[in-house]
């Protein structure tokens, strides 16, 4: 079955290979923009002596996850390239093994994207704490 259909699978993987860098670059830009905003708010809150450690923690976590995402994307991209270039009809077993590895690597990227969302949710929740502090200080 794999030997018969693997060329078609490789063509589909090649299409994914063209789409993924766009997603990666777009996500990278958008995440960098959010981090820039978060850092600016943290700096301004700190300069005004408002201390909300949860905001700083969420920002640091997003930065850390973004770095992990970058490293894991490189590994995923290299794995995907190898699967596309393999002679799958001659080595169907190693083709499928490699494909399974690429799936796990893609699942890790998906997890990172979800983790970033959770951290951004957490940051959102703590913005209201900061707003309350600012309101009380008036």
């Amino acid at each position, binding site marked *: 079955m794999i030997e018969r259909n693997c060329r078609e699978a490789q063509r589909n993987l090649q299409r994914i290979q063209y789409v993924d860098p766009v997603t990666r670059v777009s*996500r990278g830009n958008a995440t960098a*923009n959010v981090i820039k905003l978060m850092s600016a708010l943290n700096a301004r809150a700190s300069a005004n002596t408002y201390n909300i450690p949860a905001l700083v923690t969420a920002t640091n976590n997003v930065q850390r996850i973004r770095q992990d995402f970058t490293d894991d994307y490189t590994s995923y991209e290299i794995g995907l390239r190898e699967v596309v270039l393999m002679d799958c009809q001659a080595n169907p077993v190693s083709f499928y093994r490699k494909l399974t590895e690429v799936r796990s690597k893609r699942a890790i990227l998906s997890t990172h994207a979800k983790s970033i969302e959770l951290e951004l949710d957490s940051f959102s929740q703590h913005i209201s704490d900061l707003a309350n502090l600012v309101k009380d200080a008036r």
Partner: protein
Amino acid sequence: MKKFFSKVHRRVHQWVVANQLLSGIFAVIAITILLTTISMALYITSGASGLDLSRPGFDASRSAAQTGDTPTFSSTGKLTTKDIEAFTKLYNEQRDTLKKIGSFDDQALTDEALGLIIPTTEPVPGSE
């Protein structure tokens, strides 16, 4: 063997002295090939090649990649309720942009999605 190498060395040395311009050109070409090989190796192993949308075939992708306007929120100055409201608006806009971008859904690599397994339509028992 040693004699052979010393003879080759002498011959090469004589040729280089006699053809200085030509040997200079060869040396430049060799250095260029070496440096290009090193930079290509770094380009591929660092993962930069995977993100390079200027590669041939990525013309359409280049325009599809979202760069967006970089939002600005001043990191200095007094912090008021109005500033926090302005920040929240900017922050939510950026989050919406991020949500619209794909998140590497694992469904794209299933056997069915890749065409490794062609789904068969089996008859439902008792339907005949």
